[in-house]
């Protein structure tokens, strides 16, 4: 570790309970992490006889498509599928194993209703029909010639975090609780360009999108969103879509629940009214304690969680740590994230990693000196509309516990004296 500017004792004073430190600390000064920490870890003498084998023999050859290190075998999606129908289920993004804001393509969460279709792009067509001046169809090759834009945004399943409604807090790594959300840079054609070519009749208020999978999944999208910021996406993080993410083309509706972001898109029918498909009536509606259900709850409200430390981690004794987590909002930019290390009694503002993008993952971080005693960590997001992520008791009080979808309450992690982390309702 380089010699650092002497740290003013004042800046090491906690600014909130539980040992939370000023968010600017890591930005301005390098902190002494503990005497000699940087040196004690030296495992070998680079000039001596105990060189590791990878420094004595030539390495592996080039590869056509790179793969993660074999030492990172735990950074994988967990799959939960129907035993009788293995193509019907989900897989989670391991948020607790990732840093930064972009989800690697192979770790983007999945929800399939009847498997991943192997689509030959030369045979695939997109049809525009219904209340349009001229019904059209397009080959994939046609569409790839259209002017494209790139947009970074999260995609979140309406059912993400649904274990939060459970009576008892689920004990599982953070990604396998909250990881039906991922964030990518999507590139494609603004949907409005294609819709204007077909010409929407003024009575056309809804777009019924349909995929070319074995579920022929259909769902209704308001025309305003389709014309606003919806993208007909062909690329994810620079490469063509993976089959499980909609190859050869899918919809991206920034900030809106993922079921509307139809994969393997084959048809858009313009209609006066929603089709009232299974996935907008029987599913993706939220039954309230009154017996009435909320329908067309498209926007994913602000949410945040601490990914490090989180369940599965073990703190290595008292000392300085960095709290790191993710925040996002379907209504726009994250304005502020606050962290508590005393169960919500006091809060400290976290540092937000630039650039802060609308409807995207925002990484927050905060230095923390843990004194080794048990405590409860929480984070709460506030978006640019002023909306603040609610406490669980507030959400449950408002919505009941039968809604299943759209759970976005504050997440609490208990740190035990032995350094283990568990999920609690607090």
């Amino acid at each position, binding site marked *: 570790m380089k010699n650092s500017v002497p740290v003013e004792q004042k800046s090491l004073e906690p600014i909130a309970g539980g040992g939370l430190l000023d968010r600017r600390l890591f930005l301005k000064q390098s902190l002494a992490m503990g005497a000699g920490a940087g040196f004690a870890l030296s495992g070998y003498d680079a000039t001596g006889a105990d060189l590791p084998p990878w420094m004595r023999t030539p390495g592996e050859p080039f590869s056509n498509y790179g793969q993660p290190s074999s030492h990172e075998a735990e950074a994988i999606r967990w799959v939960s599928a*129907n035993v*009788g*129908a293995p*193509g019907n289920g989900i897989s989670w993004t391991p948020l607790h194993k990732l840093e930064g804001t972009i989800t690697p393509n192979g770790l983007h969460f999945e929800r399939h209703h*009847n498997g991943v279709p192997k689509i030959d792009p030369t045979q695939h067509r997109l*049809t*525009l*029909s*219904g209340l349009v*001046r*001229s*019904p*059209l*169809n397009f080959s994939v090759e*046609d569409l790839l*010639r259209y*002017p494209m834009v790139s947009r970074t945004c999260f995609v979140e399943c309406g059912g993400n975090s649904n274990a939060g409604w459970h009576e008892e807090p689920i004990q599982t790594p953070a990604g396998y609780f909250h990881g039906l959300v991922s964030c990518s840079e999507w590139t494609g*054609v*603004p949907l*409005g*360009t*294609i*819709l*204007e*070519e077909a*010409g*929407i*009749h*003024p009575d056309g208020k809804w777009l*019924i999108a*349909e995929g070319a999978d*074995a*579920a*022929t*999944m*259909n769902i209704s999208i308001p025309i*305003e969103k389709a*014309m606003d910021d919806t993208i007909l996406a062909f690329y994810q993080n620079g490469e063509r879509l993976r089959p499980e993410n909609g190859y050869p083309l899918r919809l991206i509706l920034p900030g809106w629940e993922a079921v509307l972001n139809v994969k393997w898109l084959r*048809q858009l*029918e313009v*209609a006066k*009214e929603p*089709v*009232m*498909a*299974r996935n907008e*009536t*029987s599913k993706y*509606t939220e*039954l309230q304690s009154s*017996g*009435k*259900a*909320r*329908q*067309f*709850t*498209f*926007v994913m409200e602000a949410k945040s969680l601490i990914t490090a430390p989180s369940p599965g981690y073990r703190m290595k004794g008292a000392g300085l740590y960095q709290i790191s987590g993710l925040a996002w909002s379907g209504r726009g930019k994250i304005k502020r994230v606050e962290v508590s290390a005393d169960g919500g009694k006091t809060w400290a503002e976290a540092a937000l990693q630039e650039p802060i993008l609308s409807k995207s993952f925002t990484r927050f971080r905060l230095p923390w000196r843990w004194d080794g005693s048990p405590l409860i960590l929480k984070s709460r997001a506030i978006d640019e509309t002023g909306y603040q992520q609610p406490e669980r008791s507030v959400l449950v009080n408002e919505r009941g516990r*039968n809604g299943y979808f759209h759970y976005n309450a504050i997440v609490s992690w208990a740190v035990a004296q032995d350094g283990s982390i568990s999920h609690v309702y607090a």
Partner: protein
Amino acid sequence: MSMPRHSKPLIFSQPSALAFALATALLSPSLMAAPEGPKLGHPLSQEEASSQSMNVFPDGQGLPQGKGTAIEGKDLYDARCVSCHGLKGSGGSAEELQGRSPLAGDHPDKTVGNYWPYATTLFDFIRRAMPLNAPRSLTDDQVYALTAYLLNINGIIDETKELNAKSLPEIKMPNREGFVKVWPEGGS
């Protein structure tokens, strides 16, 4: 299988160019801001385009010719659906389809009988997606019959009631008024 056909005339078929130009002029400027493309779309006739749609709307638009009753549907259900959905729509590994328990109770099953707001949704979904191991293998008559059976075991229609493109959209589901639209009224 043959392409599904609309049994009703399209609500919008061949508008005149002038009527369309007047109509699109009413759209707000913000909705007309998308970048111009190379216009490579291949024109389809309205008939070609609608013949490719499988969407069945609550008013019956999109329903094909055909008919079926719950009596016919029962045998079909027991052969094709029971392994996942259980006897009489209950107790299987897949969704509970039968039941009328109150929705305001603790953890109610959301079934066809107590939750689904439109009978047309059953036809739309079964025809496009069921059964999971052989989607698109049912004839339109079979889909009408299975729809009738599911409505019958939920006490909504008699076992002899014939469902077709006219009678299906006329069925009022018990939970038809059970939904509050969050969008667009006031935003969510």
